């Protein structure tokens, strides 16, 4: 019953984090990767000693590519710039090689057209996932209508889900501002997985509520049933998230650079998701139920 009784404190923590995330995104925004806004990125590694960053930056600035230089590893640089063509790339390579022999490890170039398309597809996927899940929950809980109707489970799941997506986005906005973390297609994929995971988690608790409602005594308050369901599924929620997070932490440290930001986004999202399914989603069912009760009482009072 602990969670249900102290739900206001748990709501407060969620609200603080969500508000902080929204503020961060609206103040600092998100740094979009080249796959969304178009542009080029090159990763080079110098065989010998690499030039220091200001030297390289100032050497590149006359080229007019809006290049931003970031060090990677011991000998490498990642350079981001606007979308450049083959000729411009040759100039770039020539400039880079004036500082010593270097090997090109990676070069990506995305035209603005493809970037807009990727962004649109990403947004549409997110909206589709959310819609599909509301319908699914409304369907899965169609037999549950008392004391609160099945679509309200769907709405609560969406609240939890939005919470779980906003928090990693906020964290990446902060990281983008201070450490240059970018939001790219892989980040959106991470958000979509968080969506799936969040619902997965929330459904397990709801499922228990559904089951307990089935054989509860008629006079047992709904808040007790929800509280019981939360404690019954508590260990499972924590342990499942634990194993998934263990896997992701390993991926973060061992999996190599290309999936590092991706696993970080997932870790944040899944922690938020576990929190929301235990401390936010199910208690919200109780809050909705209390509102209903109050309204009903008011109605009765008027009569």
């Amino acid at each position: 019953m602990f969670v249900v009784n102290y739900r206001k404190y748990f709501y407060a923590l969620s609200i603080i984090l969500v508000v902080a995330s929204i503020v961060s995104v609206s103040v600092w925004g998100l740094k979009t990767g080249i796959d969304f806004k178009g542009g080029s990125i090159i990763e080079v590694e110098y065989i010998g000693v690499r030039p220091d960053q200001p030297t390289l930056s100032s050497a590149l600035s006359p080229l007019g590519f809006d290049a931003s230089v970031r060090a990677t590893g011991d000998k490498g640089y990642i350079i981001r710039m606007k979308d450049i063509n083959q000729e411009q790339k040759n100039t770039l390579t020539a400039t880079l090689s004036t500082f010593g022999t270097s090997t090109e490890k990676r070069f990506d170039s995305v035209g603005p057209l493809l970037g807009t398309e990727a962004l649109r597809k990403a947004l549409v996927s997110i909206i589709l996932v959310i819609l599909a899940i509301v319908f699914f929950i409304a369907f899965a809980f169609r037999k549950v209508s008392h004391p609160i109707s099945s679509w309200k489970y769907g709405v609560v799941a969406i609240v939890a889900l939005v919470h779980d997506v906003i928090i990693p986005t906020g964290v990446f906005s902060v990281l983008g501002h201070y450490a240059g973390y970018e939001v790219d297609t892989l980040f959106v994929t991470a958000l979509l997985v968080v969506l799936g995971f969040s619902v997965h988690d929330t459904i397990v608790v709801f499922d228990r509520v559904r089951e307990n409602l089935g054989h509860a005594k008629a006079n047992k308050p709904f808040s007790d049933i929800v509280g019981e369901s939360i404690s019954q599924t508590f260990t499972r929620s924590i342990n499942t998230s634990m194993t998934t997070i263990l896997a992701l932490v390993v991926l973060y440290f061992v999996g190599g650079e290309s999936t590092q930001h991706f696993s970080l986004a997932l870790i944040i999202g899944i922690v938020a998701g576990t929190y929301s399914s235990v401390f936010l989603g199910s208690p919200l069912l109780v809050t909705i139920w209390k509102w209903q009760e109050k309204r009903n009482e008011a109605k009765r009072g008027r009569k």
Partner: protein
Amino acid sequence: MLKTRIIAVFLLIIAFVIGFLTYYSSARPDSSIGKPFKLGLDLNGGTHLVYKADTSKLSSDEVSVSMQALRDVIERRVNAFGVGEPIVQVEQGGILGSKEAQHKLIVELPGVTDIEEAVSMIGQTPVLEFQTIDKKESDAVSAKNLTDEEKQAEINKLFKPTGITGRMLQKAVLEFNPTTGEPTVSLNFNSEGKALFAKVTKENVGNIVGIFLDGSPISLPTVREEIKDGKAVISGAFKLDEAKKLVRDLNYGALPVPIELLSTQTVGASLGQSALKGGINAGILALIVIGIFLIIWYRLPGFIAVVSLAIYTTLMLTLFKLIPVTLTAAGIAAFILSIGMAVDANILIFERMKEELRRGKGISEAMHEGFARAWLSIRDSNTSSIITGLILYFFGSTSVVTGFALVFLVGVIVSMFTAITASRIFLYVVAPKTTNKLSTFLISNGFTKTIISQSLTK
């Protein structure tokens, strides 16, 4: 009980055999079942190019034919480059695509890291050439004791250019032989070509004048007589499709659809190697860490979960080969994530089982109840994951996203299967029959000791 045991042993044997075959086919790629994992460009190194095809000048019924022709032309050029397993595919924007780039051409060149070279190779105009070969020389090669392919390769080397190229071809037309009804391809040269063609055919009566597109022979007719009117007919045992294709190739010496480069991506081989190594290490380590956690916390059932997780991993790796799934860094990440999620079904079942034990049920009964009750949660929660996976797969904007989604989707489905079959059967088999200190310890988990009711245990 005996039946369950037999099934359990059978499952283990099957899993072991599948695992061994998969391992063997990787370890011995040249054996009869040898088949290495397919690695994406980000792990193998290579170049990924996306072109926009400008179909605005084509009528709508021509579009798909022209795109097909474009694909064929580019594929031939790429093949001529000698790239191992290139991929050339046409992609339609669909409902979410932008109007400006509705038709795209995607070219993947594993192992090619020089974009400049790759781009120029694809962008070049194809070369249609007429080359001759001396009949005696080709006969000499044919007489050699070689396979047909080797002979062909040697003959191709002996061809000499005639100076006649596609530039001199006015038009190629599909015709039908009036007597036999066979399709033939007739060629019309312009005045320059006419003169040269007359000269070449005069000198080469009895020899072959081969027609080459991008260096590979598309037709090898034998000259019967001098041809003065600048018209030639390629006849032979053509099928109608082949004749049509040849006419198309000849007429569209240039690309049938103009293309424009939208995006390029190159990954150096060393970066790919390190990403692959990182992914594999992460996968192995994740399995070990999760395994330790499960055994410490859930003890005997935890051990069962580890066994079924091993079966899950084996099945997944086998499916990667059979489907086949092109593994990318994102795909490996999806696999590792799915390991975490695969455990979920087991945990749901164990927690449920523990509750039933607390209610005073015997071990065997608690296990059956645990499975039955956990099933609804497993079904509903995995369904939502499958929905997410499907949407990602079909609406994913890049190959990174679809690569992730495919592995994720397969992972969720396979993990559901292993949890409700393998985990269940093994657990039934190893369940302690008697209640004593040891069985209590084995079945308990975490910090709480689960008391097994004495009276109900059979």
